[in-house]
């Protein structure tokens, strides 16, 4: 009985907690900061020691982008695109070029077009297209954003394309750490060439190798949302109870804390929603 009252005193102001929810006491608030920093250090150390378990930066996998793109095509009654290693390589080179020359566009500052990368890897095409995305944290979010943009959607559900290549590369663009997603579409001049058979073998191998990993960013995000949820709940309950009991006390203003923490929560939930071109 005493223990349950002790737990509730973390949320409900009463005589035992000096009429202030215990979660809102200065030492407990400071402990939240300490706990979060400790959790983050542990996650970072674990990610460094077990890179296969925790993936860096985002949860975007090229295979998922291809799978989701093909799902969208199937819904339109179109045939799925097959993964092509040359298009994958061209996408990798495009991403590397954007990081190297610090730009975010279809055309590079030195006027290099997306098609230059197709030619560079020896992919002769009849039709070709490119979709770009950055700062997304999941493959679903990337494809959903493309599907909401008419020009990107046109590429995804274009019946003339037969093959696809995707690169997901982490790096620093204009001083900001980011994840770039480059999606290339193509229809080869000679679809029955030996090259295509080779690519299909390579693609299936790379698909099997793709590990399903947890993102440290996602774990940190969940811990942060949990902390904010607990504090917002404690602030709300504390405010309601104190207003009902009409207790006078000397402490910070709950409504102000709620506003500030809600702004922090909104920023965490809405940020990194990504950009497409």
């Amino acid at each position: 009985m005493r223990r349950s009252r002790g737990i509730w005193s973390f949320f409900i102001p009463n005589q035992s907690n000096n009429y202030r929810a215990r979660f809102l006491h200065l030492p407990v608030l400071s402990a939240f900061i300490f706990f979060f920093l400790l959790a983050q250090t542990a996650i970072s150390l674990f990610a460094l020691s077990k890179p296969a378990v925790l993936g860096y930066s985002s949860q975007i996998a090229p295979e998922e982008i291809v799978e989701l793109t093909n799902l969208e095509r199937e819904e339109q009654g179109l045939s799925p695109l097959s993964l092509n290693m040359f298009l994958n390589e061209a996408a990798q080179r495009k991403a590397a070029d954007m990081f190297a020359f610090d730009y975010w566009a279809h055309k590079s500052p030195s006027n290099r077009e997306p098609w230059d990368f197709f030619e560079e890897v020896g992919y002769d095409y009849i039709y070709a297209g490119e979709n770009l995305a950055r700062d997304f944290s999941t493959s679903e979010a990337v494809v959903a954003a493309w599907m909401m943009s008419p020009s990107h959607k046109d590429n995804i559900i274009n019946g003339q394309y037969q093959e696809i290549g995707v690169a997901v590369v982490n790096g620093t663009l204009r001083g900001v750490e980011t994840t770039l997603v480059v999606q290339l579409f193509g229809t080869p001049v000679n679809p029955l060439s030996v090259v295509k058979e080779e690519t299909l073998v390579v693609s299936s191998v790379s698909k099997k190798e793709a590990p399903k990993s947890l993102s440290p960013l996602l774990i940190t995000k969940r811990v942060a949302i949990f902390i904010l949820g607990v504090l917002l709940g404690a602030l709300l309950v504390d405010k309601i109870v104190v207003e009902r009991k009409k207790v006078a006390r000397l402490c910070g203003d709950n409504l102000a804390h709620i506003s500030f923490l809600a702004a922090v929560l909104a920023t965490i939930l809405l940020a990194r929603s990504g950009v497409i071109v």
Partner: protein
Amino acid sequence: MKKKSKRSTIVDYLILGVVLATGVILFLFLPPIKYKKEVGILVMAAFYVFWSIWFHSKRGDLEIKIVLEYIVVAVLGMVLLLALI
């Protein structure tokens, strides 16, 4: 403790709400610029602490314990945002 008019308190909260909302919107929709996130987070946290000092001094209950509470909440918000954004 001074008695503040209800209208004055609403204006104080409105100022806080508008500045925080503007901060969030600018943060989310400005193009990625170097140190944008660090500066933005620092400005938002600093504004929150200064607002609290102004608010409680107007209310007549400004105490070091209260300022410390706001500083700890502001630091918590900063730490969470810097880790994630």
